[in-house]
C-alpha cells in the first residue's frame, strides 16, 4: 500500500514537472530560414567628408530598408563595405615585416612603407579592378548613418589616407547572413581636414568680443580712468598676515597646490607668490614654499628670486626657500603637514589647484594655529577651504587677486572687462530662458557649440 502511494505520488510529481517543463520550454522558432525573402536594400545612400575634423573620416547616410521594422520586418543589421585595393595588403605585409625589424633592414622597410603610403591614392583609382569589397563595420537596424573614421598615424593598420577615392555600399542583412540586399555603390568620395571648425563659431565670437573688451578697458585704465574694484577681504588680509608673521618671528608657508605650470590657477598663484615674496623680503620674514611639481618649483624659484631683487634684498633670498617635495599626492600632504607642525608658521597661504588634499592641509594648519588664506578655482574644494581657513578667494577672485594686490591700473582694466562680460552673460541667460520657453530655436541655436 505504501509503495502504491509512493508510485502514485511519484507519477503526479513527474506529470507536474513535465507539464512545467513544457510551459518553460523556449517555443520553437516557427520561421523557417528558407522562407526569408531577400529584404529591400537601403536607398539614397550618400557619403561625404566628415565636417570640422582633421580628415581621415567619411560619413555615410541612407534611408532605411522598407523591411526594417516594417514590411517583412526581416532586417537585423546593416553591413558597411568599402572597396579596398589589393595593394593595401602589400602595404600591410610591409608593416608586419617592420615589426621586430632592426638596423638596415628596418630602414629599408620604412622607406618601402613610405613609398607605398604615397601610392595609396593611385591604388584606389584602379576601382573596380585589383580590389575587393571588405566589410568595415556594422550598423544596427533602425540606424541611418555610419562614420568610417580611420586614424591619421601612417604606421597604423587603421590609417585612412586623405584625398583618396573611396567607394562604399551598405548591405541590409537578415537573420540569415547569406540573405541580404546590397545598396547602390556610392563614390568616389574623399576625406580631407578643415581649416576652421564652424561648430565653434560661438566660442570664437565670444573670445573676440571679450578680447576687445579687455583691450578697451586696459587702454582706458592706461589713460588714467578711475576704475573701482570691490575689496577682496582675503587679499587685504595678506599684508596683515605677513605683518603678523614678522611680529611673531615665525615663517610664512606658501602652497601652490597640485596644479602644473600650464594651469591658469597656478599662473595666478605665481603672481600672488611674487607679491607675497616681495613683502616678505621687505619685512625680512622667512618664507617656505614646498612644491609638488618640478616645473612649478623652477618657476616659483625664479618668481621669488625676482621679487627679492625688486624689494632690494637679493642677499636675503635663499635657494632653499622654494623646494621640491614629491609628485605623490599624499606623500606631499604628509611632508607639508609635517612642516606645519614642526615650523608652526604664522600664516599659511594656499593658492592654486587643490584636490583631496585641501582639507588635510587646511585642517592641520588650523590645528597649528596659523592664520590661513586660501584661493582655488576647484569648486569641489571650496567648501573645505571656507570651513577651515580664515579667508577664501572663491573661483575668479584668485585671478583677480594679482591685479588687486598690485593696484596697477592696467591689471584692474581687465577686471572691468570681466565684470562687463558677466553682465552680458546674465542678460543672455535671461533672454535665453525666455527664448527657450517660447521655443525660439533660432536664437538658442546661435549659442550651440558643436565639437
Amino acid at each position, binding site marked *: 500500500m505504501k509503495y502504491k502511494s509512493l508510485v502514485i505520488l511519484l507519477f503526479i510529481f513527474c506529470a507536474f514537472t513535465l507539464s512545467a517543463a513544457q510551459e518553460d520550454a523556449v517555443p520553437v522558432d516557427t520561421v523557417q530560414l528558407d522562407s526569408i525573402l531577400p529584404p529591400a536594400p537601403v536607398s539614397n545612400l550618400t557619403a561625404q567628408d566628415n565636417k570640422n575634423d582633421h580628415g581621415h573620416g567619411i560619413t555615410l547616410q541612407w534611408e532605411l530598408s522598407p523591411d526594417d521594422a516594417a514590411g517583412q520586418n526581416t532586417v537585423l543589421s546593416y553591413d558597411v563595405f568599402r572597396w579596398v585595393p589589393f595593394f593595401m595588403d602589400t602595404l600591410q605585409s610591409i608593416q608586419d615585416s617592420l615589426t621586430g625589424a632592426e638596423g638596415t633592414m628596418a630602414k629599408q622597410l620604412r622607406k618601402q612603407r613610405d613609398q607605398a603610403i604615397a601610392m595609396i591614392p593611385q591604388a584606389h583609382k584602379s576601382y573596380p579592378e585589383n580590389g575587393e569589397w571588405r566589410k568595415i563595420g556594422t550598423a544596427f537596424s533602425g540606424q541611418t548613418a555610419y562614420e568610417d573614421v580611420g586614424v591619421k598615424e601612417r604606421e597604423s593598420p587603421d590609417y585612412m589616407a586623405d584625398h583618396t577615392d573611396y567607394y562604399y555600399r551598405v548591405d541590409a542583412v537578415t537573420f540569415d547572413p547569406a540573405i541580404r540586399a546590397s545598396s547602390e555603390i556610392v563614390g568616389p568620395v574623399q576625406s580631407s581636414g578643415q581649416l576652421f571648425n564652424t561648430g565653434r563659431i560661438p566660442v570664437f565670437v565670444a573670445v573676440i568680443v571679450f578680447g576687445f573688451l579687455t583691450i578697451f578697458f586696459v587702454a582706458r585704465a592706461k589713460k588714467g580712468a578711475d576704475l573701482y574694484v570691490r575689496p577682496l577681504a582675503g587679499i587685504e588680509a595678506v599684508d596683515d598676515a605677513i605683518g603678523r608673521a614678522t611680529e611673531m618671528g615665525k615663517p610664512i608657508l606658501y602652497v601652490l597646490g597640485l596644479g602644473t605650470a600650464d594651469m591658469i590657477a597656478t599662473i595666478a598663484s605665481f603672481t600672488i607668490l611674487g*607679491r607675497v615674496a616681495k613683502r616678505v623680503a621687505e619685512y625680512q620674514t622667512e618664507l617656505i614654499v614646498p612644491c609638488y611639481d*618640478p616645473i612649478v618649483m623652477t618657476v616659483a624659484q625664479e618668481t*621669488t628670486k625676482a621679487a627679492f631683487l625688486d624689494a632690494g634684498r637679493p642677499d636675503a633670498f635663499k635657494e632653499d626657500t622654494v623646494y*621640491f617635495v614629491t609628485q605623490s599626492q599624499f606623500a606631499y600632504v604628509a611632508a607639508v603637514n609635517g612642516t606645519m607642525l614642526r615650523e608652526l608658521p604664522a600664516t599659511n597661504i594656499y593658492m592654486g589647484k587643490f584636490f583631496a588634499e585641501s582639507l588635510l592641509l587646511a585642517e592641520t594648519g588650523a590645528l597649528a594655529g596659523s592664520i590661513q588664506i586660501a584661493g582655488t578655482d576647484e569648486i569641489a574644494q*571650496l567648501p573645505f577651504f571656507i570651513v577651515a581657513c580664515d579667508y577664501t578667494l572663491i573661483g575668479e577672485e584668485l585671478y583677480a587677486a594679482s591685479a588687486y594686490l598690485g593696484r596697477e591700473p592696467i591689471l584692474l582694466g*581687465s577686471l572691468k572687462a*570681466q565684470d562687463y562680460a558677466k553682465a552680458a552673460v546674465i542678460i543672455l541667460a535671461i533672454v535665453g530662458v525666455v527664448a527657450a520657453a517660447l521655443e525660439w530655436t533660432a536664437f538658442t541655436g546661435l549659442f550651440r557649440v558643436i565639437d
Partner: protein
Amino acid sequence: MRRQIPLALVFIFGIFMIFQYFVPHESSEWIYEFFLKWAIIIGIFALALGIWSLIRVSVDRIKTKKLNWGYSLITLAGLFVMMFFGFTGEGLENPMFRNFFNHILIPIQATMFALLAFFIASAAYRAFRARNVMASLLLIAALIVMLRFNPYLGPLGPYTADASSWLLNVPNLAAKRAIIIGIGLGIVATALKVILGIERGYMGKG
C-alpha cells in the same frame, strides 16, 4: 632682452594655441602634439632639478641638525633605495622594489587619505555651529542632505529625498554655475593678460 624673449615666446605660442582650438586640420594637430611632447621633455629635465633640490634641502637639514633632521635621513634613504632597486635586476618588476611600493608606500598613502574622514568630521562640526542665521540655514540644509541617506526615516523618507534633491539641483547648482561662469571668464582674461604681456607675475614681475 632677458625679459623680452620670454614675452615674445609667450605671445607667439599663446596666439598659436588660441587658433589651434579653432583649426581642426592635421597640420595644426601635429604642431600641437609636437609642443606637448616638448612639454614632457622639459618636465623630465625639471624632475632632475626637483630631485636635486630635494637632496640639497635634506642634506642641509642633516648637516645643520635642524629639528627632526632624522626625517630627512629617511627621505634620502627611501629615495636612494628605491632608485637602486628600480635600476637593478628587473627594473620596476624588481621584487624588492614592488615590495617596498606595495607594502610600505601604498599603505602609508592610504592612511593619509583615510585621515580625511576624521578631518571632515571636525570641519563639519565647525561649519555647522548655528552661530547666526546663515550658519543655521547651512546646518538645516546639511541635515536634510545627510538625512537623505538615512534608511530609518520611514514615511518621511521620500519627502527628505525630494527636499535634498531640490537643494542640490536648484540653489546649489545655481551657485555652482555662477562660480563656473566667473571662473571661465577669469581664465580667459588671465590667459589674455599673460599672452599680451600685461600679466608678468610668472616671471617675477607684476
